């Protein structure tokens, strides 16, 4: 693929004759009348845009550097040009894995033998390469059976063996499904808020200077001692800095959870209210970001709004896909290293468990702790046997019951520690 004579203005400038050849005769035809220099620029901009469409974080600096790569000796060979652009444009392992397919489709669309729907369509069309990525993605799963787990059926089985909810008088031990009295609901809400407050702060290991603390800050002590002739009169200390924990709650509002949704919506409101940094999401078959609606100071209105959003959903839960949406679109913004993610769900997933497992693994890498609250744990003989639950468990730091207020209150010491 090495050209023997300079084939373009751009190539002449840079002294590397292969450029025009590498990029193919296709665009000399397309961009008739312009110099290859600007054609290359356009083409490269298209490639950068395609990458962006595929979730790459490509900025102007990268595009500019890519231009200089194209004008450099590595562009003489397609394989090394690809390697160079890959090193430049990729920022994560998933980028790394997607890159080859996108590159092939964009720069060498015609040569792709394995391309399915897009042979021939990839030329200069920014939509086409995206299909490659999608086709690749949807091809991977598909082995697992898609049979919806009859959520209602499972529930009906469970309802008969729930733990002594009806005999208990105390609201704390009453299964939340049975709390109907407004006063009780208010109590539940208050508890949720208290819980939320108890886990608000965590110590971080970085230290800062303090007037009192557990370790001497030598640097500052010496600096201050100069004025006293080297005698450390004023001591400076270092102490661990306390930083607020950020909490992200993902609430399952599917049919199988419907009995608990009302309570947890209250809990969500308490959380968003009490935490300086909290985000709430509700999911069933899709994921919805609900923090804005929850910020309504009027509890009743906020809860009503949210209940409406959470309502009217049948047809199973897609936990894996909802998590994928979360990881793809929200995680980067709402998660940092001192974020705990709390998932409230019964784990009945109608999607593939593999997908759920993979998304849990991705989430695990991003956040500090994952807490999974499962209302079903409170039921006698419950074992987390739902396949989705099984797939998710290895990534969960705290797996706890949440079927009544007592069980939630019992969480307090654990939550305070995460």
């Amino acid at each position: 693929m090495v050209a023997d004579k300079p084939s373009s203005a751009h190539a002449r400038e840079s002294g590397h004759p292969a450029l025009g050849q590498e990029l193919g005769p296709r665009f000399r035809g397309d961009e008739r009348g312009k110099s290859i220099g600007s054609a290359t620029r356009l083409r490269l901009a298209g490639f950068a845009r395609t990458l962006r469409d595929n979730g790459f974080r490509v900025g102007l600096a990268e595009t500019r550097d890519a231009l200089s790569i194209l004008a450099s000796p590595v562009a003489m060979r397609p394989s090394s040009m690809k390697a160079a652009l890959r090193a430049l444009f990729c920022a994560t392992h998933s980028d790394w894995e997607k890159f080859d397919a996108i590159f092939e489709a964009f720069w060498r669309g015609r040569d792709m033998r394995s391309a399915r729907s897009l042979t021939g369509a990839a030329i200069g069309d920014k939509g086409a390469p995206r299909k490659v990525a999608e086709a690749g993605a949807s091809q991977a799963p598909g082995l697992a059976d898609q049979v919806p787990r009859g959520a209602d059926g499972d529930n009906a089985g469970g309802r008969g063996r729930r733990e002594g909810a009806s005999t208990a008088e105390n609201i704390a031990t009453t299964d939340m499904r049975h709390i109907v009295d407004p006063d009780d609901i208010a109590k539940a809400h208050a508890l949720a808020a208290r819980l939320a407050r108890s886990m608000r702060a965590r110590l971080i290991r970085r230290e800062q200077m303090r007037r009192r603390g557990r370790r001497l800050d030598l640097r500052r002590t010496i600096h201050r001692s100069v004025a006293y002739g080297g005698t450390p009169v004023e001591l400076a200390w270092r102490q661990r800095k306390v930083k607020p924990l950020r909490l992200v709650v993902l609430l399952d509002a599917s049919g199988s959870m419907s009995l608990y949704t009302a309570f947890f919506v209250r809990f969500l409101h308490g959380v968003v209210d009490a935490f300086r940094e909290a985000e709430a999401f509700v999911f069933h078959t899709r994921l919805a970001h609900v923090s804005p609606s929850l910020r309504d100071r009027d509890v009743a209105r906020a809860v009503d709004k949210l209940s409406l959003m959470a309502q009217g959903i049948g047809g199973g839960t897609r936990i894996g896909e909802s998590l994928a949406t979360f990881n793809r679109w929200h995680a980067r913004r709402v998660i940092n290293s001192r974020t705990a993610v709390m998932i409230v769900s019964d784990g009945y997933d109608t999607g593939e468990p593999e997908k759920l497992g993979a998304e849990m693994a991705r989430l695990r890498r991003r956040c500090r702790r994952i807490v999974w609250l499962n209302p079903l744990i409170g039921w006698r003989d419950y074992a987390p046997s739902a396949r989705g639950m099984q797939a998710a468990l290895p990534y969960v730091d705290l797996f706890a019951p949440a079927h009544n207020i007592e069980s939630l209150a019992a969480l307090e010491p654990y939550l305070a520690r995460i």
Partner: protein
Amino acid sequence: MAPLMNRETISDRLAAAGYIADRDLATALWLMEFLKRPLLLEGEAGVGKTEVAKALAAVHGAELIRLQCYEGLDQNAALYEWNYQRQLLAIKAREGAGENADAIEEHIFSERYLLERPLLAAIRREKPPVLLVDEVDRADEEFEAFLLELLSDFQVSIPELGTITATSIPRVVLTSNGTRELSDALRRRCLYHYVDFPDVDREAKIILTRLPGIDTSLALQVARMVDAVRREDLRKVPGVAETLDWAATLAGLEVQDLRQEPEAVYETMICLLKTHEDRSRLTREVTERLLGKVA
């Protein structure tokens, strides 16, 4: 400035330094020079990410300065520290000589009392060194932000001393094991290379380079066997260092052919398998089955 080394030279010198690189890595290392960007290496533990930095230092004949990150790493440990003992002595001595406090302060906060830590050392060398920021994902976000600033400006300010600008721009290699997601800004700043376990041929070459006395066919068998072991469902997948240990052990036991001595293979597999779970998973039977496949 030295002329840009081309990709083939980098490949050759890597090999001379005992690092068997794939072509793409050589391209990435070349690109580091060409674009003056840091290189971020990701990959599973044990694939030889740290080795890349060592080899890069050898390629350029540069010094390797290493900063190992950990949770709670702060600027004191990474950038600079004052030599307190000497400062205290100097204060006493100068006070005795009747100097005033301002003069003493000026004196004890001078270069003589400054202890360089890796990051400061890396930007104050005459000849650009290779700076390895190892396991950057273990440090916290504040440190990452600070690192990013250093990597774009190549200057730091020390309150008592003023701004220190880089004498030379180091070649920076960052490694991450992916225990925490790195910030987009840092990723954007860096070139990226995903280091995978070497394929059989490359691993055999690595064994031959590192253990020069070893028999070629044994090296190939070991590489194949390790490749098969990695495909098993293990908790801790053996890395290249483990492969080398194992190959050295087998060579030391004068094993010629793995198939002939399944017992020795089974017993020495402790070089590869570092958890009880993995050890009990690869039973004698499984080992023999794998041996049958690789031979």
